[in-house]
């Protein structure tokens, strides 16, 4: 029987967790009368231990004698009305349990049996007037997620009568005999083929199933299998490998599809592969145009993009999404998202040191009050869970979270978007080789490093290639373990510098199947022995071992003569490493279990056998016969209401909970200004403390504009990222972009009747990306697409608005020149760069007013915009700019207002002077979201010089920074139109998101 130790705070000590839970229940549920919530940590020790051992463990590693008490195998407290015990379901990652097990072994100083495990949980003791129904609701909605956690609820009497030892321990007790493989008969009709795919959660289409069917009918395949004594039928291991390798998640089938694109009233156009013809082409055109100023080192072929930073280092950058898992378990999904994307740069080239994270989230309003569809969690719970997951993943990994944003739109109820990015710093040269290159060599050993394999994450790759539905598997959800990963990356950086491996890649979606399958392309084959793989618990079938997405694992290719050293060093560093097989040049992926072959697939077929999809796209341009009417209103209250909008208000409460300055390179933090709470435009940091060269990281994301035209949405996203970066001093000629598309299903079907329109939106988004990035000279270095962001249960279908996140990394030659957005001194001149157009369509203002308007912004003159950005870069380099801030959500008025309150200064400006193209109302001047506009503050003595730098460009002196609290704006015909106190505006802006 397992032993139980409970640890909680002493009665006179504040229970911070309990207090937090109590407040959350009051604010989110408002049920019952809760006098107090006390908590106790539960340690379940799954072994026979002496009573004296239990006492020494409870008093030693498991409790803090200053503030905590403990109890052993009896209740921690008797003063409560209800107790709720939350633990993990068997097999779910329990990080504290793993740490506790290690601590127990060290403290007892003796070897424990193999079956020994420690499991953790939490008990919540509630006092107050709470009904059974209420406590169940608290358990469900606040304390536990039933997908991954078990929950037990008792009232006072019941609890004191319970024998808790009989609860046992949540171990996986799977005693079934493993079947090495099962044959699957594909000689069946189409309906049966589809049924095989559907029932097996394979997400393979009929065309794909038929293609596999044909392969197994090929004479050479039949002969080869016969000669090796393998069944002629496909094995379930092979089917799983193909489903993983060919999944939308891994193969990006939609981005590689043949598309017939029709614009209303025009002839259809045949497009081959959006990826090749837009994304790759953009980069190629930019690189060609840049010639010897090209900064790209490795694009599109590795886990992340690599650009040059300086003469000794390169920058590595990757952004991923983790939407589907975050919908089911926000905490685990987001935590896995961040530690997962960490491994992408880490597994690029020969590996790199991780220097920064970015995070961009899209949620429905946390104040949502409507009816929630089945299986959908409340948006506030999603927000808080995701926030905490990224907090734990980023902070515990020691990687600063330097840039991000949160976008709100109620369609993200269907699926939240969780974008996580990671940057790394890579030496240009590692042991005499280029750092960004790697190659597994024939006969190299395949070594898996890091965590063990469990059933967690099985079918993650295929699952994220489908909409969220009733059968969405809970095993696709998992919890990351940042410390196991940190130990692994610490060791691997050491191994890299000691020249112990030839290639490295991560085990992400698709697990070993993906990592080994990809690396085996270097040598054209591999032999893998799955029985050697270290497992979290017994009972895994070979196919499960191969496709499991259990986290914290890298695969490395180690030369035979270095295997012993590699394994010995790993053991010394307390990191598990296992020799799974060898890379070969046989042309086949040969998977074995206890020496029997369970999968034998041609490398060619595996990687190139997938048939191209053929899709249709139909574009209907938006129409608007009359310009919509914006009812006259009080612009002052309009502005204050804009400041309160979720997409504009302060995100400080999230930012503060992320460590944004570990590694000590932080130069422009996410928050700036007199009170350290102004909204910075971009992050500036020094990745190497020995040089003042730095990087600038920013993002652009505006899904609202997709409602009118995804072309405009992409234009505005790219320009926003660029504007943000140049405001802080980024060099516009040294920028690289990452495109992350999150779309609603663009493949038309009965359940998805407007698929052709959604695909047309995708085509237009790609056109815009190419057009603007080529004009701006920004190569795309990496990206990702997530195409099935829909919710579909019963008659409810919720599709997200098509969304591109454009992430940007740029260089700043000297961080000591960087600029922030807070106004600095009264008396300085204010300029507005760029031209304002009547573009209120899909703006925050239009959304607030409930007006449908199709006049969305776009970049009208990219050459001119870029000329402005270059002039701004020169001006910042000469030290002429005291502050700079771009106009985005909410337009000019919001931007200037933010500058005023961040610098605690006033401003007096006249917008009738500003460059204007067609604006006839003050509302347009104030709130239009036209692109390429930046407000700049300049000392009077430098005005002549900066005006010379902007000669011939739209840049107008519109006013002055003033002392005091007031922002005064004049509109058309120099008539005062808006006067507002920055203090009022700030309080509106700050008091929205405070959880």
């Amino acid at each position, binding site marked *: 029987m397992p032993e139980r130790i409970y640890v909680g705070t002493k009665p006179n000590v504040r229970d911070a967790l309990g207090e937090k839970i109590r407040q959350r229940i009051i604010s989110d549920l408002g049920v019952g009368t809760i006098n107090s919530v006390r908590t106790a940590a539960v340690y379940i020790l799954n072994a026979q231990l002496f009573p004296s051992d239990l006492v020494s463990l409870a008093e030693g590693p498991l409790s803090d004698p*200053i503030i905590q008490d403990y109890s052993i195998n009896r209740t921690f407290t008797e003063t409560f009305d209800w107790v709720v015990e939350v633990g993990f379901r068997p097999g779910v990652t329990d990080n504290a349990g793993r*740490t506790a097990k290690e601590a127990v072994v*060290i403290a007892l100083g003796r070897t424990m049996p193999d079956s020994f495990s420690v499991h953790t949980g939490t008990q919540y003791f509630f006092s107050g007037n709470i009904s059974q129904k209420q406590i169940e609701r608290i358990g469900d909605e606040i304390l536990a997620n039933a997908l991954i956690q078990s929950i037990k609820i008792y009232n006072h009497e019941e609890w004191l009568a319970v024998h808790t030892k009989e609860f046992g321990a949540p171990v996986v007790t799977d005693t079934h005999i493993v079947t090495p493989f099962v044959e699957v008969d594909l000689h069946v009709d189409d309906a049966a083929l589809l049924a095989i795919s559907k029932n097996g959660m394979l997400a393979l289409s009929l065309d794909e199933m038929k293609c596999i069917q044909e392969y197994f009918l090929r004479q050479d395949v039949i002969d080869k299998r016969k000669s090796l004594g393998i069944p002629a039928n496909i094995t379930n291991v092979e089917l799983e490998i193909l489903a993983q390798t060919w999944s939308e998640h891994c193969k990006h089938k939609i981005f590689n599809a043949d598309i017939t694109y029709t614009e209303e009233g025009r002839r259809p156009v045949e497009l081959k592969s959006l990826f090749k013809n837009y994304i790759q082409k953009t980069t190629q055109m930019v690189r060609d145009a840049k010639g010897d100023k090209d900064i790209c080192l490795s694009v599109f072929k590795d886990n992340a993009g690599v650009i040059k930073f300086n003469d000794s280092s390169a920058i590595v950058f990757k952004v991923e999404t983790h939407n589907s898992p975050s919908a089911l378990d926000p905490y685990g999904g987001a935590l896995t998202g961040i530690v997962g994307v960490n491994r992408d740069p880490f597994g690029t080239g020969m590996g790199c040191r991780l220097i920064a994270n970015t995070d961009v989230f899209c949620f429905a309003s946390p104040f949502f009050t409507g009816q929630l569809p089945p299986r959908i969690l409340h948006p506030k719970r999603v927000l808080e869970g995701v926030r905490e997951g990224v907090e734990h993943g980023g902070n515990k990994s020691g990687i600063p979270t330097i840039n991000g944003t949160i976008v709100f739109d109620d369609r993200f109820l269907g699926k939240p978007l969780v974008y996580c990015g990671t940057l790394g710093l890579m030496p240009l040269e590692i042991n005499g080789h280029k750092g960004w290159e790697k190659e597994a060599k024939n006969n190299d050993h395949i070594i898996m490093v890091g965590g063990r394999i469990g059933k967690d994450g099985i079918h993650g790759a295929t699952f994220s290639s489908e909409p969220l539905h009733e059968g969405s598997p809970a095993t696709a959800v998992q919890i990351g373990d940042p410390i196991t990963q*940190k130990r692994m990356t610490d060791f691997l950086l050491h191994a890299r510098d000691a020249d112990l491996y030839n290639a490295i890649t991560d085990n992400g979606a698709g697990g070993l199947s993906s990592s080994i399958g990809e690396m085996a392309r270097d040598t054209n084959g591999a032999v893998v022995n799955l029985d050697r793989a270290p497992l979290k618990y017994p009972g895994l079938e070979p196919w499960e071992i191969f496709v499991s997405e259990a986290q914290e694992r890298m695969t490395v290719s180690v030369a035979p003569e270095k295997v012993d050293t590699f394994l010995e060093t790993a053991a010394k*560093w307390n990191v598990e490493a296992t020799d799974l097989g060898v890379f070969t040049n046989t042309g086949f992926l040969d998977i074995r279990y206890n020496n029997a072959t369970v999968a034998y697939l041609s490398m060619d077929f595996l990687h190139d056998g997938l048939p191209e999809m053929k899709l249709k796209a139909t574009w209907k341009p938006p129409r608007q016969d009359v310009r919509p009417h914006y009812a006259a209103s009080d612009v002052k209250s309009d502005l204050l209401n804009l400041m309160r909008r979720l997409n504009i208000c302060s995100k400080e409460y999230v930012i503060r909970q992320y460590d944004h300055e570990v590694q000590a390179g932080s130069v422009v933090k996410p928050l700036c200004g007199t009170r*350290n709470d102004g909204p910075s435009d971009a992050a500036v940091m020094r990745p190497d403390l020995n040089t003042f060269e730095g990087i600038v990281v920013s993002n652009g994301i505006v899904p609202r504009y997709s409602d009118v035209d995804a072309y405009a949405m992409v234009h505005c996203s790219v320009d926003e990222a660029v504007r943000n970066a140049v405001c802080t001093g980024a060099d516009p000629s040294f920028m690289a972009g990452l495109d992350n598309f999150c779309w609603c299903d663009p493949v038309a079907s009965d359940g998805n009747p407007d698929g052709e329109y959604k695909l047309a939106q995708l085509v237009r988004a790609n056109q815009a990306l190419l057009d603007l990035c080529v004009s701006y000279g920004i190569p795309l270095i990496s990206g990702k697409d997530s195409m099935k962001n829909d919710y579909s249960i019963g008659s409810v279908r919720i599709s997200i608005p098509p969304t591109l996140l454009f992430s940007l990394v740029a260089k700043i030659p000297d961080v000591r020149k960087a600029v922030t957005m807070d106004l600095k001194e009264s008396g300085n001149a204010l300029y507005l760069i760029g031209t304002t157009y009547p573009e209120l369509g899909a703006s925050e203002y239009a959304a607030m007013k409930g007006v449908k308007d199709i006049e969305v912004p776009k970049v009208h003159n990219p050459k001119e915009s870029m000329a402005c950005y270059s002039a701004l870069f020169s001006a910042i380099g000469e030290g002429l700019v005291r502050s700079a801030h771009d106009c985005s959500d909410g337009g000019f008025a919001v931007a200037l207002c933010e500058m005023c309150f961040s610098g605690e200064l006033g401003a007096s400006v006249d917008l009738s002077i500003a460059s204007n193209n067609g604006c006839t109302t003050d509302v347009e001047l104030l709130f239009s979201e036209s692109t390429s506009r930046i407000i700049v503050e300049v000392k009077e003595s430098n005005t002549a010089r900066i005006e010379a730098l902007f000669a011939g460009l739209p840049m107008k002196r519109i006013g002055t920074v003033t002392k005091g609290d007031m922002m005064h704006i004049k509109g058309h015909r120099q008539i005062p139109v808006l006067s507002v106190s920055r203090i009022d505006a700030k309080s509106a802006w700050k008091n929205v998101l405070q959880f």
Partner: protein
Amino acid sequence: MAKKTSAIVLTGNGTNCERETAHACTMVGFDKVDIVTVWELVNGDVELAPYDLLCLPGGFLDGDDLGSAKAQANRFLHTLVTKTKQPLFSQIMTFIGDGKLILGICNGFQLMVKLGLLPALGNSFTQQVTLTNNDSGRFEDRWVNLKANKASPCVFTKDIDTLYLPVRHGEGKFVTRDKEVLDQLKAKNQIALSYIDAETRMPTMKYPENPNGSQLSIAGVCDPTGRLFGLMPHPEAFLHKTNHPRWTRENLPEEGMGPKLFKNALNYISQNL
């Protein structure tokens, strides 16, 4: 010729501020600065003895899973070095006995407290205080104003009046076992560093100036000799003026406020060891 000065910066197992901590040591002029993983100490590949300053940097040792730094404290207390079969902890005791310096920052401070190295009242190395969950119940990254205690024997805060540094923790609330411990800390001037109000420049219990609710606004304490020092704020995070959150609007000296603590350690070592 003067003796070469050396610092060891311990890392591994979740520590993550080792590079900037080592950078600070190098910046102020330590002749030799080594980043060493805890596994190298455990294996016996590296020993503490040759070094003058031991830095225990910030991070999340073992994920702070059993409470901040608890599992690492357990490891230090119970591990025998593989090569020598000697207790790892006795190396630390010898290091202290030799009159050398230990600096614990954030997670390193938590580790020192849980090992009983601080505050070591009555020269007893048992746990007398703790660092626990912030009153806010959350991890926070924010800059705080600090005042050093002029009367403190602390080697590291010598000649320092005030500091402005970031805190980045969820478990920084300083709590003593009882009032007697608190009184003694005060009486012996072991409270080397306190959170202060920006306006009044006086120790404060007000949030967020006191970011965690620490008793007596305690941000850092030393042992009775002043040679062992731990603090929650991060001096290694303010090495250059560009680290300051308002450097674009305030006239600041090129060097940040953090290096001074390391310089004090170096001076002490040069003069005394």
